[in-house]
């Protein structure tokens, strides 16, 4: 009976998430007049999806803790909306809904994978939003952020260098700093400081000088990341650098030249570093090395392939057989149990988030924030390309997380911060009008 319920729920979840993406895209198109309708529709749909996921988790696991956890989340989301309404009258509501929706799906799937981790993630989320809530206020008050670009640049390099010197090794890469009570991944925050640094330099000087100075800093960032074996972040920073230079100067040669230089650098990295070689080998043909280097990607493909278009239903698959499924391969778990259609809706919503961010940048008159916003959008978008592409074997796996969906405090904190920066830009811009 429970199984039947779970099997039927798959179709309902796919239908609701498809509707949610449809409404989100529709809200992009229509004028402000009807905006509130879409916001209400989004809220109804996302609370329904959230409810269904946790209802199934409760029915299957029969733990009363789940009910309290669920109610705690609902209380938090509602409170979050009320406070946001009070503090900032005109924030971007569809974008906020998309963020909360992603968090809801994240809590659902992580609870299914590991209840204790989900609770931990929830606490971090509460902490993160309290901090991030102040972001737009800070941005409004402090006009000087743009003048601190070198501080951001040096800070980023310093943080990464610190990790390289005293960092912990997780899964072969130096990623985190152990502060005894908590471990943090500075590279997640460097993504933001890097963007603030780049836009600070480039909005002032779009000449070859600005491009060169920012390029030198970018190269140092990337080199430290490569020797720390954090290839995913290295790649993201490279791409963001190329795009922000292109957006600031409008010269395609930077983008095309950069792509060629990047390909050449990748080739050198492939020859030089064994950990790059391993990833590429596992991507080209993982089957002969299924026991070893190809294990992770093949398990991910099994998960996605066996789940099929509608998924196996929550608890009906074996997502935990994919190594680090809560982090780098969260999309495989979603594909397996909630279906590839559901995952496609998730990717579509990420695309929607990307488009909304670019829109905010388009309407922003302050060139510094225009560049910041669009570069953050690129960071977000490219990270999704890397994590999903890696899980489905479109590209070699680079070990990056899915923003907002994956388990991990630093990633969650920095992504919420990015979203609040976007909101801050939007709020300040609408105030000026």
């Amino acid at each position, binding site marked *: *009976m429970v*199984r*039947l319920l779970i*099997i039927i729920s798959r179709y309902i979840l796919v239908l609701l998430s498809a509707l949610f993406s449809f409404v989100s895209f529709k809200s992009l198109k229509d004028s402000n007049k009807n905006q509130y309708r879409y916001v209400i529709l989004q809220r109804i749909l996302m609370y329904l999806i959230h409810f269904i996921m946790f209802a199934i988790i409760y029915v299957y696991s029969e733990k009363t803790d789940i009910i309290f956890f669920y109610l705690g989340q609902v209380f938090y989301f509602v409170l979050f909306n009320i406070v946001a309404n009070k503090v900032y009258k005109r924030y971007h509501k569809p974008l906020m809904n998309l963020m909360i929706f992603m968090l809801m799906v994240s809590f659902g799937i992580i609870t299914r994978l590991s209840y204790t981790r989900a609770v931990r993630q929830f606490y971090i989320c509460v902490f993160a939003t309290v901090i991030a809530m102040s972001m737009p206020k800070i941005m409004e008050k402090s006009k000087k952020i743009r003048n601190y670009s070198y501080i951001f640049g040096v800070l980023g390099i310093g943080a990464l260098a610190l990790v390289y010197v005293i960092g912990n090794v997780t899964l072969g890469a130096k990623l985190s700093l152990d502060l005894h009570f908590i471990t943090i991944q500075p590279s997640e925050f460097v993504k933001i400081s890097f963007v603030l640094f780049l836009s600070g330099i480039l909005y002032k000087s779009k000449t070859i000088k600005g491009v060169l100075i920012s390029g030198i800093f970018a190269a140092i960032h990337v080199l430290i990341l490569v020797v720390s074996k954090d290839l995913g972040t290295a790649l993201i920073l490279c791409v963001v650098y190329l*795009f922000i230079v*292109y*957006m*600031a100067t*409008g010269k395609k040669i930077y983008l095309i030249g950069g792509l060629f230089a990047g390909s050449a650098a990748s080739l050198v990295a492939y020859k030089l570093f064994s950990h790059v070689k391993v990833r590429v080998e596992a991507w080209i043909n993982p089957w002969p090395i*299924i026991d070893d280097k190809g*294990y992770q990607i*093949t*398990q991910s*493909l*099994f*998960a*996605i*392939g*066996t789940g*099929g*278009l509608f998924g*196996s239903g929550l608890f*009906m*698959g*074996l997502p935990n*057989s994919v190594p680090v499924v809560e982090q780098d391969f969260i999309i495989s778990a979603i*594909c*397996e149990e909630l279906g*590839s259609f559901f*995952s*496609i809706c998730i*990717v*579509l919503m*990420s*695309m929607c988030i*990307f*488009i909304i961010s*670019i829109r905010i*940048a*388009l309407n922003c*008159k302050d*060139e510094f924030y*225009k*560049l910041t916003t*669009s570069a953050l*959008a*690129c960071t977000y*978008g*490219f990270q*999704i*390309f890397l994590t*999903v*592409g890696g899980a*489905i*074997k*479109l590209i070699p796996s680079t070990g990056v997380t899915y923003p907002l969906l994956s388990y991990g405090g630093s990633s969650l904190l920095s992504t919420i911060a990015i979203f609040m920066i976007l909101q801050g830009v939007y709020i300040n811009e609408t105030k000026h009008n």
Partner: protein
Amino acid sequence: MKRNTINDNLIKTTYIFIILFGLLISYLLIFVIFESGNIIDNSYNKRIDTLSNYVDKGNIYSKDLEVLATTDEDGNRYYPYASLFCHVVGSTAMGNTGLENAYNYEMLSSNVNIFKKFINELSGEKHPGNSIVTTLDVNISQNCKNALGGYKGAVIVMDPTDGSVLSMVSNPDYDPNTVARDWDTLSSSTNGELLNRATSGQYTPGSIFKIFTLYDYITENPDTYKNYNFTCKGTVDFGDYTISCSNKIWHGNEDLLISFANSCNCSFVNLSEGITTESLSNICKKLLFNSDLPIEIEYKSSVFSLTADDSSFMKHQTLIGQGKTLVSPIHMILVMNAIANDGVLITPRFVSKLIDYSGTILEEYEIKNHAILFTKEETDILKEYLRQVVLTGTASSINNSNYTLYGKTGTAQIDENGNINSWFVGFVEKNDKIYTICVVIENVNENASPAKNIASNIVNTLP
């Protein structure tokens, strides 16, 4: 003006990212819809086994629809013929093997209609899984098993015209019904009960390798091989080593045909001058040594190992099948299949059809050509040589007027104490049908070479 250009760049950037998102979505869809079916049926995919919580695994039938494996009321796998098909059909209790593994996903999928599925879900009943119809013949398998008796070894019988595996038995065996209970004994046993010797056994070929030596010599000396002549005096002395014929028999004056029929070691070592290592190596590669074989169940490839750097001793040893070369019985019978079928190797198959619980055919597996290994002219020559072995050579004792038998015997020395592996590979034309057969008996005393007699017993009982 400036602002607008930046916005233009933003919009172009957006298009690039939309293409990236589109790439992700379309690749995911293509993977799930078109490609995933081929990859998920893998023993590393533990998800398939969770299907058995909701589906009663389907049956495995013989060629004549006798049940070889089924699921009983308690959900356990039951094998009516006990150990007879234990290697080829396999078992499930301690990890899937054989066809139980190769067709696991198919048999754990159910084609009952959605309405019935709904009723089953409500009443908590499992869906009946789909079944496979194999090409295995119960009678032939029983005869093979009887002929093999207490010997360690393997027998394969196939139909070379459509690639069907009619029988595949391996000794010693185990009872798949009690494999879980017997696991401790089986897994620690040194007898290799769990090993399917027919596909995964690797044996020194001995004289059956002379088929490859012969084929290479004919290919390299197409105009002169018919004029070949040699006088065998039982042994040949090469200074630091000697090569001798079995029991040091003097075969006397012989041409190539009679050298092959007599399996004359001295004469075959003498061929060495007309054989280049490079050519032999290429021919073995073409005939599927050191290559993947089109076999659905677990197997080992044959290993040909001779390079131009090896000593002439090693080359001589290899020519008579005593070098470092190792072969698996399934590979040897595939070569026979190609010779018996005018050079065309049909992809071997164990399963002909997939049917649902009511017997409706869901899929018929087509007969496919795997490769062309020989030309028709070459197989005609090889057939003449293989026939001569039975007419006047080492297998003349099993010649019989009821059928036309072709083949090659082999006696491979495996240690210094006179222990050998005994081989017979060949094919028979009987009652307008063609069967290929491969028999290998391991570790018997030199005086007994039982393989050809076992082959003869089996051929006598073939329909």
